[in-house]
C-alpha cells in the first residue's frame, strides 16, 4: 500500500489559500497524492476543486501555502514549469483546434520540425505509438471536428501525455461520456496506474469514485474536510462529507420506490398533455437529426429520454420548444396544435422549458437574478410599454425564497452565482409559474449533490401535481431515478420504449450504443 511505504508523495499541497476578489476559492486547502495512485478529488460545485488543481498545474498562483511535487518545493510555479516537470491537466472544456488533425493538435506547442517545415509524418508516427501504448485509440489523421466527444477527450489526454505528463489531472472527464466510453477511460487510467503514473480525478459522481479511485480527498467551501481510503468507505460517507449532512442519494430512492412503483403501473386514461407525431428535425448542418419520432406524455407522467449525447436529443427538445422548425411532423399540447407557434406562444399554451445549456440559453449571465427570473415572461411584467420594476422585484423575492436561491440578492448578476444556484434560477422561472408540459433537458448537469436532490424533488412534485414532463438526460442514474417510462434515443430515433420496471442500466446500455434496436414508432 502506498501509505505504508515511507516514500515522498507525488504531490503535496499544504495550507493553500486563493481568493478571487471577494470569493475565497481555497481556504487552507490541502492534498496529498501518493505516487502511482488514482486519487479522487471530490466536492460539490464551487467547493474549490478545480481552483486547487489549476494551482497545481501552475495556471493560478496561490495567495499563500506550500506546494511540493516529488518532494521539490514548487510553490507558485508557472504553467510552463509545471508541464516541464510532468504535471498535465485535462480541462473540462476541450482546448482543441477543430479544423486540424489529431496529430497536429497533439504536437501543437511542441511542433516537430525538419528545417523550417513541420515534420507531420513523424508527428503522426509518434502519436500513433503513444495511442497504442496507452490504449487511447484514435486515428492521428482525422480532423478533430469529425471526432465524437469521447474521442476528442482521448486526444486531450494524448496531448497531455505527449508533453511528458507523469502526474495527470482530469477535470470531470466523464461528464460528456457514454457508459461504454467511461468504461474505456477507466481501462486507460488503470493501465497508466500500472505504469506508475499518478492520476488526480476531479469528480462529484460517487459511483465513479468508488469504482476507480484508491484514495479520496473531499473538499467543501474551499477547505479540505476529509481524506479517505476508497476501500474503507461508503458512498454515503463521502456524500455526507461533501454536503455536510445526510443526503438522499438518487439510487437509494430507486430501490425504495421501485417496489412500490412496480405494482401500480400508472395507467393513464387521461388524454396526453404532450403529443408528438412523426417529428423530423434537421441540425444546423441540415442533416437529419431527429428522424420520425412519435410519442406522448400523459398528465402525471415523466417520460425519460436516455441516450448518448448527440443522437438528436438537443434537436428534439429545441423543436418541441419552438427554437427549431421541424421539417415534418406535428406537436400538440393538450388538443392544441403548436407545431407552427413561436416560443412565446408555446409558453402561453402551457409549455415550460429547462434548456440543456444554462450558460448559453437558460440565463443572460450579465442580467440580474431578478431579470433572469422573468426571461421569456417579460410580456407579463409590463405596464404599457414599461417594465414593471416593482412586480419584477416582488416576483424575484418570492422565487428566491421558494427555491432557496443563494445568495438571496435579486440584484446580483446571474454570472456571480454558483452553478447549482444558477440552475435553481432557471428551475424557479420555469416551474414557479403555471404550466402543463415541462421539457427538462439535462436539468442537473454540473450542479452539486444538494441541488440535484432539490431539483429531483421539484420534478417529482410537478409530476404528482399532474404535469407532463419530458426528461432528457445523459445521466442514466437520473433517468432511472425519475422516469415512469423510458425511451432510448439513438441515431435520431427512439429505439426502445420501456416501462420503468423493465429498465435497468444493463437493459438500456445496448440500445444506447446502437447494439440493440427495438424500433419504436
Amino acid at each position, binding site marked *: 500500500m502506498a501509505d505504508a511505504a515511507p516514500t515522498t508523495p507525488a504531490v503535496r499541497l499544504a495550507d493553500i489559500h486563493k481568493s478571487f476578489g471577494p470569493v475565497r476559492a481555497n481556504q487552507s486547502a490541502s492534498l496529498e497524492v501518493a505516487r502511482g495512485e488514482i486519487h479522487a478529488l471530490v466536492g460539490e460545485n464551487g467547493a474549490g476543486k478545480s481552483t486547487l488543481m489549476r494551482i497545481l498545474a501552475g495556471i493560478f498562483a496561490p495567495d499563500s501555502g506550500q506546494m511540493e511535487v516529488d518532494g521539490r518545493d514548487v510553490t507558485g510555479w508557472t504553467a510552463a514549469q509545471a508541464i516541464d516537470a510532468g504535471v498535465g491537466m485535462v480541462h473540462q472544456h476541450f482546448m482543441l483546434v477543430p479544423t486540424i488533425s489529431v496529430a497536429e493538435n497533439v504536437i501543437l506547442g511542441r511542433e516537430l520540425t525538419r528545417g523550417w517545415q513541420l515534420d507531420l509524418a513523424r508527428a503522426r508516427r509518434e502519436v500513433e505509438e503513444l495511442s497504442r501504448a496507452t490504449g487511447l485509440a484514435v486515428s492521428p489523421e482525422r480532423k478533430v471536428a469529425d471526432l465524437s466527444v469521447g474521442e476528442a477527450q482521448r486526444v486531450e489526454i494524448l496531448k497531455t501525455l505527449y508533453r511528458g505528463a507523469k502526474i495527470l489531472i482530469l477535470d470531470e472527464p466523464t461528464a460528456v461520456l457514454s457508459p461504454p466510453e467511461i468504461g474505456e477511460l477507466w481501462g486507460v487510467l488503470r493501465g497508466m496506474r500500472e505504469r506508475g503514473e499518478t492520476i488526480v480525478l476531479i469528480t462529484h459522481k460517487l459511483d465513479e469514485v468508488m469504482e476507480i479511485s484508491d484514495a479520496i480527498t473531499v473538499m467543501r467551501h474551499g477547505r479540505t474536510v476529509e481524506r479517505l481510503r476508497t476501500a474503507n468507505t461508503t458512498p454515503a460517507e463521502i456524500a455526507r462529507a461533501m454536503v455536510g449532512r445526510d443526503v438522499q442519494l438518487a439510487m437509494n430512492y430507486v430501490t425504495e420506490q421501485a417496489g412500490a412503483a412496480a405494482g401500480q403501473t400508472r395507467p393513464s386514461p387521461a388524454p396526453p398533455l404532450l403529443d408528438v407525431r412523426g417529428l423530423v428535425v434537421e441540425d444546423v448542418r441540415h442533416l437529419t437529426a431527429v428522424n420520425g419520432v412519435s410519442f406522448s406524455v400523459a398528465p402525471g407522467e415523466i417520460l425519460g429520454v436516455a441516450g448518448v449525447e448527440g443522437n438528436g436529443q438537443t434537436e428534439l427538445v429545441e423543436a418541441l420548444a419552438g427554437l427549431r422548425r421541424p421539417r415534418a411532423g406535428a406537436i400538440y399540447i393538450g388538443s392544441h396544435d403548436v407545431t407552427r407557434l413561436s416560443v412565446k406562444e408555446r409558453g402561453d399554451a402551457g409549455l415550460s422549458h429547462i434548456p440543456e445549456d444554462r450558460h448559453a440559453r437558460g440565463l443572460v449571465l450579465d442580467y440580474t437574478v431578478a431579470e433572469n427570473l422573468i426571461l421569456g415572461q417579460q410580456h407579463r411584467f*409590463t405596464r404599457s410599454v414599461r417594465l414593471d420594476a416593482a412586480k419584477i422585484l416582488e416576483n424575484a423575492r418570492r422565487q428566491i425564497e421558494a427555491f432557496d436561491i443563494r445568495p438571496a440578492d435579486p440584484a446580483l448578476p446571474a454570472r456571480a452565482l454558483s452553478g447549482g444556484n444558477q440552475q435553481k434560477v432557471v428551475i424557479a422561472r420555469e416551474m414557479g409559474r403555471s404550466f402543463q408540459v415541462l421539457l427538462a433537458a439535462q436539468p442537473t448537469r454540473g450542479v452539486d449533490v444538494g441541488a440535484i436532490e432539490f431539483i429531483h424533488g421539484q420534478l417529482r412534485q410537478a409530476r404528482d401535481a399532474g404535469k407532463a414532463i419530458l426528461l432528457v438526460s445523459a445521466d442514466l442514474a437520473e433517468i432511472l431515478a425519475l422516469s415512469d417510462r423510458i425511451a432510448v434515443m439513438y441515431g435520431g430515433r427512439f429505439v426502445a420504449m420501456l416501462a420503468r420496471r423493465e429498465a435497468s442500466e444493463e437493459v438500456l446500455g445496448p440500445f444506447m450504443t446502437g447494439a440493440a434496436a427495438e424500433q419504436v414508432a
Partner: protein
Amino acid sequence: MRRRAADEAIFPAVVALLVAAIVGDALILSFGQNPGTVYRLLIEGTWGNAYGLGQVLYKATTLTFTGLAVAVGLRAGLFNIGAESQLAAGGFVAALVGLVLPSGLPALVTLPLYVLAAAAGGGAVGVLPGVLKAKFGAHEVITTIMLNFIVLALLNYLTAAHLKVPGSLHTAEIHAGALPRLSAMFAPFHGSAANVVIVIAAAASVLTGWFLFRTRRGFELRAAGLQPEAAEYGGVNVGGVWTRALLLSGALAGIGGLNFVLGYKHYYEEAFASGAGFLGIAVAIVGRNHPLGVVLAALAFATISQGGLAVNAVVPKQMVDVLQAVVIIAVAASVPGVRRMLRTAR
C-alpha cells in the same frame, strides 16, 4: 456591485485621458512649445468663452446623435459603421422637406416635421442592413460600410445633378421655420453655431436611456445583444430585434443631420457629415454604450476638436487628431486592464 460597475466605467476614461495627456505633452514639446501654454490656449478657446463653448456644444450635438446611434446598435450586438451615411441621409431628407415647405411657417410647426423627415432618412439607410441581417445573415459591418459608399454617392449625385446652387456644393437656402440658434436666447453665444437641436439631443439621450433600460423592448434588445441564444429561448424574435435596432440606430444618426442642415447652414451641403458618423463609433465606445457616457464622451471629443482650432497658431491642429486617436486607443486598451486591477485590488 453598483459601485464596481461605476468604477469600471469611469476608470478607463481617466486612464485614457492621462495617457493622452502624456502623449500630448511629448508632441507639444517636440514642436518646441510649452505644454502649459498650449493647454491653457485650448481651454480658453473652448470652455473659456461663450463663443468657444457654443462651438463645442454645436459639435457635441451631432456627436451625441451618432454616438447614441452606434451605442444602440452595440447594445443589440450590432456594429453599425454606417452612421456617417445615415447622418447625411437624415440631413438630406430634412432639407428636401424644408425646400418644399412654404416659407414663414413657425419653427414649432416645422420642427416635428424635420425630426420625422430626418429620422425617416437615416432610418431607411439603417433598416436595410437590419433586414439583410435578419433575412439572409449578411454581416452588418460589411453592409453598413458598403452602404456608406452607395448612399453618399447617391446623395452627391442628387445634389450635384438636381439640387445645387450653381457654383456651389449645396442646395438652395431653406426658409421654412429656421431653427433658432442659442445666441437668440443668450447673446454671448453670438457667432457660434449652437442651436436648439441641442435640446433634441438631450431629449434623445434621455429617451434612449429610458428605452434601453426601462422598457420591455429595451430588455429584449439588450438580451439579444448579450446572448442571442438566450434571448431566442426567452421568446424574443432576434431577427426582429436586429431590424428594429438598426432602424432606431439609423434614425438617431439621421436626426443628427438637423444640427448642420437646419440649425446651422440652412442648406444641405455635400459631405457635411465630415467624419462625425465615424467619430460616433469612438464616442459610443468611450461612453461605454450608455447614453450618459455618450453625452460626456461627445462633449470631450467636441472639446478636443474645437480646441484644435484654438491652438492652431502654436501647434498644427492635426496634433489634436493624434490626441483623439490616442484617447480611443487608450480606452480600448485600458478597459480589460483596469477591470483586472480593480478586481485584484479588492
